[in-house]
């Protein structure tokens, strides 16, 4: 991993995710802080990424690095944690039955992934599917159900869910721009995930063609 990536790009990228992850535009702009449960999910996600090798914390912090470099590593991890909490905040509905279902579903899914300990690529693919599905459910399906004006999707869903009260499913109606912001936030978050120093990455080559001596010896997978 290059120094600039660690020192500038990753922290700024993750902080941008943390900033815009709470943006909800209705009649006024609200910045929603992450609920407590998203912190638990973010912590689990951190565990999943470390277990799979998608994140190698020893490349960010180790005794061989200078203290300042270790502080930079801590900043990357801290900003990643904040961004992960806000990414879950983006993906999880804010109230009612959907929120409980999403919370339980994501918790079980992350625990399952942690137990299965797949490799980096599989974890990233799996996370893409999880966050992508959550985005579609929250910003397209639930938003259509909650829309007081109603559209063709609401009518279809109402006929499919005939007999089920929608009172527990409906959410606060936000401006469509909220969905676009959420999409941008999740895209940025995944870009950050892909850029994290992984255990399987090719060793860094310095400008003089030498291997980065700040890294500890690679461990077999």
């Amino acid at each position, binding site marked *: 991993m290059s*120094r*600039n990536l*660690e*020192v*500038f790009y990753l*922290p*700024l990228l993750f*902080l941008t995710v*943390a*900033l815009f992850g*709470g943006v909800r535009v209705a009649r*006024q*702009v*609200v*910045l929603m*802080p992450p609920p407590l449960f998203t912190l638990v999910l973010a912590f689990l996600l951190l565990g999943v990424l470390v277990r799979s090798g998608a994140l190698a914390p020893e490349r960010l912090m180790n005794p061989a690095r200078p203290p*300042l*470099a270790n*502080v*930079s590593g801590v*900043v990357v991890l801290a*900003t990643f944690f*904040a961004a992960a909490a806000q990414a879950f905040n983006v993906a999880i509905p804010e109230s009612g039955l959907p929120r409980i279902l999403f919370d339980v579903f994501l918790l079980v899914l992350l625990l399952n992934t942690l137990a299965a300990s797949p490799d980096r690529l599989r974890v990233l693919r799996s996370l893409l599917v999880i966050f992508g599905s959550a985005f579609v459910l929250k910003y397209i399906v639930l938003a259509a159900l909650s829309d007081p004006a109603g559209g063709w999707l609401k009518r279809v869903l109402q006929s499919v869910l005939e007999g089920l009260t929608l009172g527990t499913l409906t959410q606060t109606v936000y401006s469509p721009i909220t969905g676009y912001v959420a999409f941008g936030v999740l895209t940025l978050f995944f870009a950050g995930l892909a850029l994290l120093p992984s255990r399987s990455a090719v060793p860094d080559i310095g400008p003089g063609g030498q291997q980065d001596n700040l890294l500890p010896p690679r461990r077999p997978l």
Partner: protein
Amino acid sequence: MRAKHMLSRQSGQPGIIAATMRSLRESTARVLGLTIAVSYAVFVVWLYVQQPQTVAEMTGALTATVGAYQIDRQAFDDGLRFFRGDQFDAARLAFDRADPAHQDPRTQFYIAYSYYRQGWGRVYNDDVLFARALESVDRAIILADHGRVVVDDPDLQMRSGDELKAELQAGLRHDASDFNPLKLFRRRK
């Protein structure tokens, strides 16, 4: 010249200087990156605490944080003139222009007072206007030093945020005393 360079290379001095320069550049970059990241993080937390609704509110809150916020004096005087002439809507427009970031406790106090006077009724009060007055006076109390808002204006019967807030809360309360016929003889403050 060439021989001298060769000599110094042999003694290893350019190598040490280059390594020192590289180390310095590395440290500078890391310190710069840390400073930027910490500043950005503080800004994000500050935004989530302040919850600004407009760019004016955001810049106003930022300048207020460093003690550089100033209201538009002319607009404030206009607002005061409208307020004293019982033109409350016009007064609030002028006060909003004077304090677009909602950071001045005195202006917010007058906005609350204008809602109070407009919403006050001999038979019943306008709950919506009273609720807005309560929001404004709460904002004024939060902004003031130690929460103490005192406005030295002889035209006002309530000169502190606490008095105004208590009056508004009493006005919003609905109980048996609402049916007391003597309430018809009360006076607007």
